[in-house]
């Protein structure tokens, strides 16, 4: 467009633009700031008003918990039940058919096997006496 738009002209133009930059620097007037801030507050109030009411979400009523469910929860659920069942079966089996290792242990410690012979009848008053005493 302009062959004469050389570096010299460009420097002059840059200097002019710099002058214009300083010349046109302007502060926002308090009045303008007040108007902008009023708009801001109004927009915020509008946003608050436009917000939907607290959403009404149907909260499902807690289902009544069955006795079994409560019991299961109390002892730790089905895995705990399985453990209990295993221990019960093992206890019954040990009672029915005690391992010989038990005999060895009790013989060495108690000089007797694990079967206790207690004559409970001798240590308790006769039932008849209790009845007689009232």
């Amino acid at each position, binding site marked *: 467009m302009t062959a004469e*738009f050389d570096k010299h002209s460009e420097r002059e133009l840059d200097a*002019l633009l710099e002058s*214009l930059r300083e010349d046109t620097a302007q502060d926002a007037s308090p009045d*303008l700031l007040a108007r*902008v801030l009023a708009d801001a507050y109004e927009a*915020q109030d509008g946003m608050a008003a436009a917000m939907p009411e607290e959403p009404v979400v149907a909260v499902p009523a807690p289902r009544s918990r069955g006795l079994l469910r409560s019991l299961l929860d109390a002892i730790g659920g089905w895995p705990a039940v399985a453990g209990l069942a295993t221990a019960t079966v093992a206890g019954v089996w040990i009672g029915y058919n005690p391992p010989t290792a038990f005999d060895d242990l009790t013989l060495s410690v108690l000089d007797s096997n694990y079967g206790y012979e207690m004559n409970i009848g001798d240590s308790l008053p006769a039932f008849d006496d209790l009845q007689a005493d009232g």
Partner: protein
Amino acid sequence: MPLDADSELTDEALLALFAGGNRAAARVLTLRLTPRVLSLAGRMLGDRSEAEDVAQEAMLRLWKIAPDWRAGEAQVSTWLYRVASNLCTDRLRRRRGVGLDDAFGEGVEPEDEQPGAEARLQEADRMAALKSALAELPERQRTAVVLRHLEGLSNPEIAAVMEIGVEAVESLTARGKRALASLLKGRRAELGLSDDG
């Protein structure tokens, strides 16, 4: 939360607080951003009153978009510059519709005719001539020149504001400056430019 104009919070963080109803964030954003928008509008339009209207309108649009602002997508200042420059462009186009002379007049009529004010008058004439030449630039060239040389934005920042590539920005500013030089050529004496350029 105590906030002041020097708050280190980013514009985006403040905008999120604003959207949550924080009055202090509104004040900080107003004090921080309004002068920048006003400055751009003033330089593009050359009219204080119109620039204030544009600044208020641009800020109002910011307030309204705040609840829907998507974090990380754009810088608040870039978005604001874009809105303001578009508003200015609209006004400039309307002005062109009514004629440049009606809108700008022939420079600034000197109000002070006292001889002592001669130097100030000359400076005012220089600035008026440059403003007038700027006003004659095509809108996009003018926007690029104002953002680059008056607002001091970098080319990548201008590219983001104008939603074009950096090379396009360079081209626009270069063409804008050539056009300015051409427009001013006939007014060298008025501007005090050398004749050997």
